C-alpha cells in the first residue's frame, strides 16, 4: 500500500453532539511521520477530534482523511493501522494485563510473541498476570500504552498519554509512543513546554474552533497559555 504524503487531512471538519457543536470547521494537514500536538481547555474538542480520527465518531461536516482513506466511508481500511490511547485504558478490569493483551492481539492478528515484547517494553512483565483491578493507575496506563502499540500501528492517537505516569515510567514508554517511535502522532497535552517539544505542528482549540495552528517551533508557551485564559 503506498504511503500517503499526509497521514491526516481535515477540511472544514465538524462534529456535533445533539445541537451542540463540539468541533467546527477544523482544517489542517499533517505530514506522514510528523507529530501534531493539540492544546485547549477542557471541552475544547480535543478528545472529539481524536475519536473522530480513530473512526470512533463520525464527522458531521467537512472532509476527514486518515492514512489516505476518507472517513467514515473507508473506516474499515484504517482501523488496524491506528493505535488509540484515550482516557479509558480499554482493558477489562477482571482480566489480567496479559489476558487483555492476548485478547487484543487476537483481534488485531498480532502474533502472541508480540504480547510478551510489549509487556517487557512497558516494564509490566512481573505484574502481567495480576487483574487490572488490582493495579495502580500508572501501571494500567503502561498496559494501555502496550495495547496501543501492540499491532504496530502507523498512526498513534494519544489523549494525554503520560497522564498517571511517573517520570521513570514516562521515559520508559517514550520509545513506544514518543518521537522515537518514528510514527505519525496526534496527541493532546496540557503541558505547553512538554507538548511543543518533539512536535512538528501545534493546534490550539477553543470551544471547538481552531484558535491556533502553526509549526510547533514557532509557537510560544505564552500563546498556549492564552488558549486557557
Amino acid at each position, binding site marked *: 500500500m503506498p504511503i500517503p504524503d499526509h497521514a491526516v487531512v481535515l477540511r472544514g471538519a465538524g462534529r456535533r453532539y445533539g445541537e451542540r457543536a463540539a468541533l467546527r470547521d477544523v482544517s489542517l494537514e499533517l505530514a506522514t511521520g510528523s507529530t501534531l500536538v493539540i492544546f485547549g481547555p477542557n471541552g475544547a474538542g480535543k478528545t472529539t477530534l481524536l475519536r473522530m480520527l480513530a*473512526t*470512533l*465518531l463520525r464527522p458531521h461536516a467537512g472532509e476527514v482523511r486518515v492514512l489516505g482513506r476518507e472517513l467514515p466511508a473507508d473506516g474499515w481500511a484504517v482501523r488496524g493501522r491506528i493505535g488509540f490511547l484515550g482516557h*479509558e485504558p480499554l*482493558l*477489562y478490569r477482571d*482480566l489480567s494485563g496479559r489476558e487483555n493483551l492476548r485478547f487484543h492481539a487476537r483481534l488485531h492478528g498480532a502474533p502472541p510473541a508480540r504480547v510478551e515484547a510489549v509487556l517487557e517494553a512497558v516494564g509490566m512483565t512481573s505484574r502481567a498476570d495480576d487483574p487490572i483491578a488490582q493495579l495502580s493507575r500508572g501501571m494500567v496506563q503502561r498496559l494501555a500504552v502496550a495495547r496501543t502499540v501492540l499491532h504496530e500501528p502507523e498512526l498513534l492517537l494519544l489523549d494525554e498519554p503520560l497522564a498517571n505516569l511517573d517520570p521513570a515510567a514516562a521515559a520508559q514508554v517514550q520509545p513506544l509512543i514518543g518521537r522515537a517511535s518514528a510514527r505519525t502522532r496526534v496527541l493532546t497535552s496540557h503541558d505547553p513546554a512538554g507538548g511543543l517539544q518533539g512536535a512538528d505542528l501545534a493546534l490550539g482549540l477553543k470551544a471547538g474552533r481552531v484558535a491556533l495552528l502553526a509549526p510547533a517551533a514557532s509557537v510560544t508557551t505564552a500563546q498556549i497559555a492564552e488558549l486557557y485564559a
Partner: protein
Amino acid sequence: MRGTIAALLAKDMALELRTKESVPAMVLFSITTYVIFHFGLDRNAVSGDLASGVLWVTLLFAAILGINRLFVAEHEQGGFDGFLLAPVDRTALFVAKALGLFAFLCIVEVVAVPAFAVLLLGPSPAQALPGLLLVLVLANAGVAVTGTLVAALAIQTRARDLIGPLLALPLLVPVVLASARATTPLLQQGGAQALPGDWLAVLALYDLVFALIAYAVFDFLLED
C-alpha cells in the same frame, strides 16, 4: 471471522468464570422462583400446561438477568471501543455474544430443569427428556439471538435495566408461547406424548427470522 468470534467468546467465558456475575444469579433466580411457585400454587406437583407454563416463564425471566448483563463489561470498561478499533467484522461481536448467552442458558438449565422436576413436576421427566432437550435448544437459540439484539440496543440507553426487559419480554412472547405449547404434551400426568411438530417449526422459524434481522441491523447498533 471464526478467530474473532473465538477470541470474544473466550474472553466472555473468562470474565464470567472470574466474576460469576450472570450464571449463578440466573440459577439462583430460577430455583427461588420454583420454590415460590411451589408455595404460591399451594401444590406439590404440577403437570401438563401448568407445568409447561411455570417452566418457561421462569426460564424467560432468568434469561432476562443474563440479557441485562450481556454488554455491561463492553460498555463500562471500554470493550466496545476496543472492539471497534480492531479491523474485524462487527457481526463477530453479535455471534460471539449470542453464543455466549446460549451457553449461559444451557448451563442454567442443567441445574434449573432438574430443580423444577424435583420441586414441582408431577410426572417423571425421564420419558420427556429427549423432546424437552430439543425444545430447550430451539428456545435458547431464539432467546440468545433476540436477547443479544435487545441488549446491544438497551446498553446505549441511560435506563438500560428498564429498557432491556421492556423490549425483550414482548419480543420473546412467541418463544415462550411456542416452547410452552411444545412442552405441554411432554409433561402430561399420564406420560410423555409426541412433540407437536408445528410448534417446533414455529420456534425454528422464529430463530431464523430474528437471526436474519439481527444480522441486518447489528452493525448499525454499534455505529456512533
